[in-house]
């Protein structure tokens, strides 16, 4: 039923496995029809530097995903995204028509992995370009490695407050600094130097969904109770 090439990829899938620190992961398939695949990529200079896959599936699913990885390796992201299932089939020489979906699934999983990479990459780049400002939320800042220590250094409250924990995505750095009379300028400077150094370790974050000031009236923590001054006093005591 299967070509020699299919059997060769199936018997000895060179790209089977996981990449633990993958830049992008994409998944496709469902268990009912018996195929599920996950593709891991590492990207270097906009090219696919490393690629691996896991497959729950049949002979052709394993072979097609392995062939796809072989084709995609070294390609630019754009080239890799443009790969069609027919490219896989021509690598495999032949795939029974009823199994074509296995190769289509592979290309979809790869596209998702690239999408996933771009999303992360965008987040990281954005952080560098749009550095942390008074409008950045506490939540987004806390995602940067070492940020918590800087905040502690500046006596930033809220870090251990259970009420504040519920609204880290609403509290902005500027708002808290203003309320507690903290050195906003110095804090931002230190946080920004931090974020540049630690860009790799961070998850996509920042800004897009943080709409400063909008939710202030809904805040649950000490900021929502009474006036700013009384809160300030309470905390200072």
């Amino acid at each position, binding site marked *: 039923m*299967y070509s020699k090439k299919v*059997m060769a990829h*199936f*018997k000895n*899938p060179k790209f*089977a*496995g*996981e990449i633990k620190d993958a830049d992008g992961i994409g*998944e496709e398939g469902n*268990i*009912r*029809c*018996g*195929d*599920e*695949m*996950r593709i891991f990529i590492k990207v270097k200079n906009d090219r696919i530097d490393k690629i691996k*896959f*896991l*497959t*729950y*599936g*049949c*002979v*052709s*699913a*394993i072979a097609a995903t392995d062939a796809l990885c072989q084709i995609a390796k070294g390609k630019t992201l754009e080239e890799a995204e443009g790969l069609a299932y027919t490219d896989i089939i021509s690598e495999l020489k032949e795939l029974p028509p*009823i*199994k074509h*979906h296995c190769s289509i699934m592979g290309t979809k999983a790869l596209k998702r992995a690239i999408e996933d990479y771009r999303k992360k990459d965008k987040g990281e780049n954005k952080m560098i370009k749009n550095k942390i400002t008074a409008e950045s939320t506490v939540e987004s800042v806390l995602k940067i490695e070492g940020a918590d220590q800087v905040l502690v250094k500046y006596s930033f409250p809220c870090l251990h407050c259970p009420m504040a924990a519920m609204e880290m995505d609403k509290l902005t750095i500027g708002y808290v600094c203003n309320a507690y009379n903290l050195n906003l300028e110095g804090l931002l400077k230190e946080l920004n130097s931090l974020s540049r150094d630690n860009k790799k370790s961070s998850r996509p974050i920042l800004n897009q969904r943080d709409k400063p000031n909008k939710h202030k009236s809904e805040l649950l923590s000490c900021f929502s109770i009474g006036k700013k001054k009384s809160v300030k006093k309470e905390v200072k005591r």
Partner: protein
Amino acid sequence: MGFDGIYLDNGATTKVDPQIIEVMNKYHLEEYGNASSVHMLGSNAKMALEKARRAIAKSINANEGEVIFTSGGTESNNFTLKGVAFANKEYGNHIVTTRIEHSCILETCKWLETQGFKITYLGVDAEGFVDPKELENAITNKTIVVSIIHANNEVGTIQNLKELGEICERKKVYFHTDACQSYTKVELDVKKQKLTFVSLNSHKIHGPKGVGALYIREGSKITPLMHGGGHERGFRAGTENIPGIAGFAEAARLAMDKRHVEQMSKLRDKLIEGVLKIEGVRLNGPTGEKRLCNNANFSFKGIEGEAIGGYLDAKGICSSTGSACSSRKLEPSHVLKTMGLSDEEANGSLRMTLSRFTTEKHIDQTLEALPDIVKKLRKISTIGKVIGRVF
């Protein structure tokens, strides 16, 4: 050069016994007459045909005139359901069958539904058994025939035909069984089991492909599918396949030896015991005497059956699977699903079916190969990793 691997797909088809080829060759090369011809060569062919008919009839405790030859199980099943349905319209339009039949029964039923017939599909329990009470309740005064597979081709569940047949007799409806898998492996007695129709075939018992038989109880109303020269007492027109039929009868004769069943049961149990030692494996279907002597069917957690079969094949071991990947419809096995298995369990199924040519060495080699294959596939599967299970 012949195949020198391990063949564990005897539920699909079997190797033809060389002894049978010899018998067939005689009717291909020497006694090649048409059984309808009046000359000597023709009457020799006719004699061979009737001798084969007597032998097959005797093997299921039928009368000689009650067996006709067909092209195989699919034809016998089609003929019974369509022939009975159209011949008995005045008595009713209802047929009872099960959800675990071979697709040639299910597809015929589906077609009959388009022709105005009503079908009731009985479910089965977790081991694949039909509930006799459910059958009794399903039969109405419109029911004309009940069709239940004797031994299931995927999981080897052997139905209690006697109990089911008695219900049909009491309710005065025809009772058909598809005995393609069970023939010569499990007792078939048309009188004791109250059968009206029985489908048999040759290529599952080391006979040639393209030959089968249908038992039609004397006096049953059935209309032919094939019209023509009045062969097979008018039930099935077409020049008889004498070499095939003679080969079929010889195959049945050789297969009747009880020792074969004992040997297959022993090796089957060894295989089952060995495979179940692998972690995350379940046996599908019953154990012991209620299971076909040559059938083993497993589900492996986290991996897909066709891929297991693929690696076994690479090691020269033939098996089959109920996974969606291997089906033309890309749906997991309807039998396993009816028995209550999840999609993942059905897709992870592997069937291994033995024959009298299977040796203990074959089983040992299979048991040696399988654990590594399972390990390798689990390592590259997405499944264990999604839910954090470690196998």
